[in-house]
């Protein structure tokens, strides 16, 4: 006999869990799977992003060595006279001058960017002793012109070993560099070429210019005080920062993108919590008399709540463990197959191994467990609150759900969501935007039990018997229907909001491309890199080419206003100050500076938001080593540059800098001329120029949109997973209710219902519940999309966009979901339907 008995805890656990965990392992597995998918995605995205960001940090450290401070200038650099000034400062023990540029290099017939670092090996050795050791064998040869050392990553990428020749594009010409050897693999994992600084200045047409000096300070120097004092002495546009700031700046490039991906993965986990909620809420409803009996037998309120939470903990631990394993292998597979770049192009050129941080595994395990416990909290508290005498007698589980119809918590959450949406970002992260979305989701879920009866009351009271029975069943159990639809409501609203946001972004990008690409074709001096251009002679040849009606030239430089942020782009092109909207996608009001006022600049939304450059403000910008004053005349939308951009009239730029070079040209064709013939004429006029890129406007648009689609591909995947988890919720809901209604099905079979009629009834119920969930999800999704577009996206990336709702796609999504929900409902109820009808009717429980 004792073999059949259990210990006290075992007996209680069995009493509480057996129904759902042991007797319904499939349903329990579905709930655990909801958690597992969320944990797996969250961990995988985190590990891939972390591995990539870690590579960035390692790369930054390998380049700065033992430097205490790094002095940097814009792409145009600064006069090399600054170096002796710095090296002679009493606080400075050693200084290492450098020229660091991305150049275009030919790889497999295409031009790609390669980072070139020009160093004085002997000076650099004082700041980076490890470097001298690394290059000691090639030191003498490195001093020869046009020789380079390559990192292993770069060598593999270029297919070049020692002795090979690499062709780079500098100015208007191609230059050949001889590969001396390879840098140690562990120290330099990014794509990098190291040259002697004099060679680099010559090869990259930067004689007398530097753009970086690394400083090692004498012992005892107050680093922060010296940094501040030195910053005040440096020429305009030159900044000084610590190596830590340098490393953080590299990682900050992709921070908003990484955080948004993590948030999307968390959305999947959040939806998983609702599957647990649905599972436990319906399971507890079904077992309300059993749990009440435990209360009668002497289990305390806290005791029954703990039992429900323990059940959730088992689901959470199982799901989190499965998710951790799946996430680990998913991250490994992604890094192996695609590298650390998750589609946005931030990490191209970085080869990363998996950075398996144990804390991340613990964190995501805890998140999975917490999500399950969070989902169980409501059912646990409700179970503890329920009067056992009532629950023992009550035959109507809907009474237990009546408490959920209180609308005040939902209204309070909606008010909080509105308040959060008005709050500014925290440290550049739209924390309150995410909180606003979470409050909207939770508020809608809490409002669902109030809305469900009204929505279900609209269901048809006529038609075939299964249809009528399904409608009556749902109308009679609106509380349980609301619980079942919680996860589908959450997942659909998130998918809809993302779809609206992505469509709005894509359509806005399309419109933006039309405005910023008004010409017939475009020329770029090099498709990548910073060291190629069109000389004034090139520009004259382009204008004079047969078939060219007009040409506009653009000079791209960069500006460094804050050492903690990456430099922004400075773009000089012809702009009519009276009508800037003809060439720039200006948003809001703009002004025309009056006579005697500083000349106009037009700033991107990021520059407006982050640097506070409001319309009408007069600002100073460092140009050619001097500060010049400008009037902020307008703000424009820029989807191309994520670190900010400023437009100014090219004539003004030339007058202030004397720089007549150009990087891009916009070409308008004479009537009747084709791009093919003009392209041939331009190539003939410009001569042999490796890397020269000519693109028809249509191709450029198509390419830009394809980059956009690739960037968002991973977000589609994450959304699809969230919806799959939502469907699991429907499955769990139907399975729970079907199990509780076995007696009803048996009775229907007694009076002549066929199995297929029962199946049809369940399918219709699933579709109806989902229909209401999808309808509410569409409405909620639209509201959330407003927060995503106007708060989260704006605060993350500083991009505004116009709202566009993809109605046909949403209608198709709704239809697919309804069909999937009906199929899920039939599949989930199959076990209950297949039961012996006579036995089902006999059963008391």
């Amino acid at each position, binding site marked *: *006999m*004792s073999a*059949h*008995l*259990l*210990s*006290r805890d075992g*007996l*209680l656990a*069995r*009493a509480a869990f*057996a*129904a759902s965990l*042991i*007797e319904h392992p499939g349903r329990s597995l579905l709930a655990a799977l909801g958690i597992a998918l969320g944990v797996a995605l969250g961990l995988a995205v985190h590990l891939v992003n972390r591995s990539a960001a870690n590579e960035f940090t390692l790369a930054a450290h390998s380049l700065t060595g033992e430097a205490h401070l790094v002095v940097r200038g814009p792409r145009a650099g600064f006069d090399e006279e600054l170096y002796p000034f710095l090296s002679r400062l009493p606080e400075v023990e050693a200084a290492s001058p450098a020229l660091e540029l991305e150049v275009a290099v030919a790889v497999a017939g295409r031009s790609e960017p390669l980072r070139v670092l020009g160093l004085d090996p002997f000076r650099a050795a004082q700041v980076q002793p490890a470097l001298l050791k690394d290059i000691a064998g090639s030191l003498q040869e490195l001093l020869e012109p046009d020789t380079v050392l390559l990192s292993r990553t770069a060598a593999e990428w270029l297919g070049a070993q020692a002795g090979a020749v690499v062709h780079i594009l500098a100015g208007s010409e191609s230059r050949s560099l001889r590969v001396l050897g390879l840098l140690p693999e562990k120290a330099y994992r990014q794509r990098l070429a190291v040259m002697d600084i004099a060679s680099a200045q010559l090869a990259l047409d930067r004689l007398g210019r530097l753009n970086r000096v690394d400083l090692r300070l004498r012992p005892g120097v107050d680093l922060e005080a010296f940094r501040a004092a030195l910053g005040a002495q440096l020429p305009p546009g030159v900044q000084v920062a610590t190596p830590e700031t340098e490393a953080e700046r590299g990682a900050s490039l992709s921070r908003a993108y990484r955080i948004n991906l993590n948030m999307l993965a968390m959305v999947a986990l959040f939806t998983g919590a609702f599957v647990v909620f649905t599972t436990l809420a319906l399971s507890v409803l079904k077992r309300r*008399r*059993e749990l009440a*009996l435990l*209360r*009668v*037998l*002497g*289990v*305390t*309120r*806290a005791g029954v709540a703990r039992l429900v939470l323990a059940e959730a903990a088992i689901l959470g631990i199982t799901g989190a463990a499965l998710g951790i394993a799946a996430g680990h292998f998913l991250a490994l597979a992604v890094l192996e197959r695609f590298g650390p770049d998750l589609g946005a192009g931030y990490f191209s050129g970085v080869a990363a191994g998996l950075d398996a941080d144990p804390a991340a595994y613990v964190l995501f395990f805890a998140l999975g467990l917490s999500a399950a416990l969070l989902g169980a909290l409501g059912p646990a508290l409700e179970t503890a609150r329920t*009067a*056992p*005498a009532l629950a*023992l*007698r009550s035959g109507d589980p809907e009474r237990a759900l009546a408490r959920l119809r209180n609308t005040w918590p939902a209204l309070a959450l909606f008010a909080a969501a509105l308040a959060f949406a008005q709050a500014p970002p925290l440290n550049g992260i739209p924390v309150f935007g995410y909180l606003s979305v979470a409050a909207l989701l939770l508020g809608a879920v809490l409002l669902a039990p109030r809305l469900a009866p009204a929505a279900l009351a609209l269901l048809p009271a006529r038609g075939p018997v299964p249809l009528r029975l399904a409608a009556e069943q749902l109308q009679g159990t609106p509380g349980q229907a609301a619980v079942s639809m919680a996860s589908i409501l959450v997942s659909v609203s998130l998918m809809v909001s993302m779809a609206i946001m992505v469509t709005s972004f894509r359509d806005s990008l399309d419109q933006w491309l039309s405005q910023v690409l008004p010409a017939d074709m475009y020329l770029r001096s090099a498709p990548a890199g910073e060291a190629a251009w069109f000389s004034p002679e090139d520009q004259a040849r382009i204008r004079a080419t047969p078939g060219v009606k007009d040409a506009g030239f653009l000079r791209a430089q960069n500006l460094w206003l804050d050492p903690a942020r990456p430099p922004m782009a400075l773009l000089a092109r012809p702009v009519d100050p009276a009508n800037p909207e003809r060439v720039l996608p200006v948003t809001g009001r703009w002004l025309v500076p009056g006579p005697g006022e500083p000349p106009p600049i037009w700033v991107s939304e990021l520059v407006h938001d982050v640097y506070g450059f409001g319309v009408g403000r007069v600002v100073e910008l460092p140009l050619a080593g001097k500060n010049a004053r400008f009037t902020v005349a307008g703000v424009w939308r820029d989807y191309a540059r994520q670190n900010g951009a400023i437009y100014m009239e090219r004539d003004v730029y030339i007058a202030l800098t004397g720089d007549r070079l150009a990087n891009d040209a916009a070409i308008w064709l004479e009537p009747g001329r084709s791009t093919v013939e003009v392209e041939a004429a331009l190539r003939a006029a410009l001569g042999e120029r490796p890397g020269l890129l000519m693109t028809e406007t249509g191709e450029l648009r198509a390419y830009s949109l394809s980059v956009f689609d690739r960037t968002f591909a991973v977000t589609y995947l994450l959304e699809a997973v969230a919806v799959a988890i939502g469907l699991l919720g429907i499955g769990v809901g139907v399975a729970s209710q079907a199990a509780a209604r076995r007696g009803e099905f048996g009775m229907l079979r007694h009076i002549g219902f066929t199995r297929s009629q029962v199946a049809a009834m369940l399918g219709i119920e699933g579709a109806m519940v989902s229909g209401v969930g999808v309808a509410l999800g569409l409405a909620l999704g639209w509201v959330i999309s407003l927060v995503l577009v106007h708060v989260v996206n704006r605060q993350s990336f500083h991009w505004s966009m116009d709202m566009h709702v993809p109605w046909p796609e949403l209608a198709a999504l709704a239809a697919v979901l309804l069909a999937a929900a009906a199929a899920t409902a039939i599949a989930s109820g199959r076990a209950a339907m297949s039961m012996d009808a006579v036995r089902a009717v006999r*059963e*008391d*429980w």
Partner: protein
Amino acid sequence: MLPVLRIRNLVKSYAGATGRPVLRGVSLDVAPGEYVAVMGESGVGKSTLLNLIAGLDTPDAGNIELDGAELTALDDTTRTLLRRRAMGFVFQAFHLLPHLSVSQNVALPLALNGFAQQETDARVLHLLEAVGLAERGPSRPRELSGGEQQRVAVARALAHRPRLLLADEPTGNLDQESAGHVLRLLREQVTAGGGAGILVTHSAAAAATADRVYVLSVEGLRERQT
């Protein structure tokens, strides 16, 4: 001798707009070894009286003492622990846990009260023998007839030797033969254990098995003279 249960002037109304009074000044004493029946029409408050005695509900006024301890002054957790230790229940609808075996259902109160495994095994075996189901220990409740299920419920109610047994229409779902068996069992076990028992029933035949019979009506609780 101190009564096991002592009720004085118990008053209870249903909450809500009507505030309909259910119990008005009910008083009752039940001595050790005594087994009393409470009869009354439907809706008169018999189950409410049981719920108040069990501490599952609280009275508007009056006192309930179990072995001299005042129940109405206790908080919910203390009442729960007292119920766990000192009371046993038999319901009309059996309320056996379907996913536990017969033995495990009977062992549940013993487990809750921290009985040692060996004592639990012996006690379960004894009780199942006493109710004539010694061979059905490993069975699931659904495999038993209604009468057998109620005998398991009786065994469970008596497993931890409660001072007070409360039975709410225990034969309402049973045929005559099974009902007779269960009623005999209840009476034997209550009186043998030295505790007290209250049987709530509609059935005059069931009530006849008790030492005393009370009738609950809107006027209050009155003993029926035989």
